[in-house]
């Protein structure tokens, strides 16, 4: 496996403080490698978006990062902790190193500015020496890259379709050639055909430009298709992490299995849709032990009392995957 570009170490993110505070992301360890697409799946409320916003410190109040490190490995130079950057350095870091494509492209663009303005203000902020003409040229180039005619530069967001807006967002994300692109449910608002078209295009761009992607969605079948590795979150923790194919073939965690059973796969053999009974846990009253145990069909003695740690399973292709489940006791923990 290639070198890491982003290492998340015991990241803890919560909302509010003191008695009213809840912990939405708990001791998450995750490593993103150079050039890979890492999928992050889970039901709504599992903490996957909180994780993405938390690691870039973009979570709105009352969000709080309560602990952990996010070590970034720049293309050149020493790795550093993103959470320890000053506001000014964080501003410089943002978009230049990690760009984000947000959920709901409808509201991601500022309705009162032209597309060209929103593309070039990034350049103005990060590359102040660049001339206005080369800024515009660069913006035009990015639109071309994502398949939008250059004459849409002067359009306002409301004049574009949902798919086009999302393409603009992707073009905007790549304009500074970041090493990491975080995509938070980038295509949920689009129809299925458009989804695949855009994601296919993105994967192709990744091969050309060589950035890494953290791809967040609740749609596991999309992840299986488009990502290299998949991490599955439940109740703020990562419960399983494995190569996409391994998850698809034999998911170890009962929750991953349930999640796989909730979506029809577009390709591959047909299977029955099962879904998961019950509903995601309330952050305020997290069940003891493994937070999935009240819904888990295979829960047994230790599940209710003890939190399983994420570690390499003792069985099968254990080297490349990890799981946090008492059914698959851990040989060595990760992180």
């Amino acid at each position, binding site marked *: 496996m290639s070198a890491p570009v982003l290492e998340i*170490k*015991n990241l*803890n*993110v*919560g909302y509010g*403080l003191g008695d009213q*505070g*809840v*912990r939405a992301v*708990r*001791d998450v360890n995750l490593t993103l490698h150079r050039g890979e697409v890492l999928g992050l799946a889970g039901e709504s409320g599992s903490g996957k978006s909180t994780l993405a*916003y*938390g690691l870039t*410190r*973009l*979570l*709105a*109040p*009352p*969000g*709080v*990062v*309560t*602990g*952990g*490190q996010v070590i970034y490995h720049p293309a050149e130079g020493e790795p550093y*902790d993103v*959470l*320890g950057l000053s*506001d000014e350095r*964080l501003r410089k870091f943002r978009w230049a190193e990690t760009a984000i494509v947000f959920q709901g492209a409808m509201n991601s663009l500022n309705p009162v500015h032209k597309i060209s303005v929103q593309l070039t203000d990034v350049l103005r902020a990060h590359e102040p020496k660049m001339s206005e003409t080369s800024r515009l040229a660069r913006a035009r180039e990015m639109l071309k890259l994502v398949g939008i005619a250059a004459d849409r530069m002067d359009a306002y967001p409301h004049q574009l379709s949902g798919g086009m807006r999302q393409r603009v967002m992707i073009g905007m994300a790549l304009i500074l050639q970041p090493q990491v692109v975080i995509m938070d449910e980038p295509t949920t608002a689009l129809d299925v055909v458009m989804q695949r078209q855009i994601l296919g295009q993105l994967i192709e761009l990744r091969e050309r430009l060589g950035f890494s992607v953290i791809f967040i969605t609740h749609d596991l079948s999309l992840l299986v298709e488009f990502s290299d590795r998949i991490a599955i979150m439940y109740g703020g923790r990562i419960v399983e992490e494995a190569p996409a194919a391994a998850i698809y073939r034999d998911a170890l965690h009962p929750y991953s299995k349930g999640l796989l059973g909730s979506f029809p796969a577009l390709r591959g053999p047909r299977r029955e849709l099962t879904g998961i009974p019950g509903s995601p846990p309330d952050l305020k009253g*997290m069940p*003891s032990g493994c937070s999935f145990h009240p819904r888990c069909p295979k829960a047994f003695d*230790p599940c209710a*009392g*003890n*939190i*399983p*740690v994420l*570690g390499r399973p*003792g069985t099968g292709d254990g080297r490349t995957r990890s799981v946090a489940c*008492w059914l698959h*006791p*851990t*040989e060595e*923990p990760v*992180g």
Partner: protein
Amino acid sequence: MTIPTSSIEQVIPGQGSMAQPEAGKPAKAKRQRFLFLSNRKAAAGLIILGIYIVLAIIGPWIAPFDPGARGEDLMQGPSSEHWMGTTHLGQDVYSQLLVGTRSVIFVGFLAGIVATLLSVIIGVTAGYVGGKTDEVLSALSNVFLVIPALPLIIIVTSIMENAGEWVVALVIGFTSWSWNARVLRAQTLSLRRRDYVEAARATGERSGRIITFELLPNLTAVIASGFVGTVIFAVLSEITLAFIGITSSNTWNWGTILFWAQGQQALARSAWWWFVPAGLAIAILGTALSLINFAIDEFVSPRLRSAGKTKIKTNSGRTVRMRIGFTPVLSNSPEPITHASPIPVVDHNGATPVVRKEHAS
């Protein structure tokens, strides 16, 4: 004069998700109502308003003097006998203020009720029925909105000779419903598109039933806010009318006091006690009503609530501010929070797993 700013933003639908009443279940609504009272602004506003209402009822009885009765002491400053001094005719300003409260509260509430009823009828009908009815009613309310209300009220009341409280209240009520009607129309429109209302319509429930049981409960906050806004406007209008001497000067209200003070050169004679109390009474009543409206606004759109604690301490003792775009980081330690150790080493032969209970955060 003040503008009912608290509702400006509600007028424009489609700008973010402001002023969307919670479409909650009854149980939730009850809890929220309780929550509303626990809001400090609401509590302060309601207490002050309560005092004014009590004074409006008992004011004329507890007033030490007849507000119109002439006395021996002319233009005297505050004393133990005349707490707020006397007028040029020796009338007791304190008694005038107390007696005048009833008229102010009466006109404010009557005008508020009239305007609120009109705005609910017109606004909800326009929003619910839609089509041509909506166009006509919207045009009507927009016309009334743009025509300057106060000059209209002044002219109408001045034409009706010696207009009494009832007339003043009704004229104000009939000219100041349009703002709320607009807000209510927008809210009704957005509520009508909600699933549960659509469902009720689809299953053929009667419109009257849908409006009474599905729409109105969800419009309560907006209606209340509109009512309070109109009361503010009505109080200021009544006082203004009395101040410029249009309404009958037989009934006392705070505007009448100011009318006499202005007319008798209270300023030039430095008789501050004559005009300061009435003005303060207006300002405090207005502040109380505004506070209630702020609380309603915060209740309706939670984003406006004060963020509570905005400054927090990090683990290393530094203080950081909660703000959008830069989530505070309390600790940079790469150590897990839930459980420090021991690292589990699991025996494959089915030994008991290591127990690690989670500490509640």
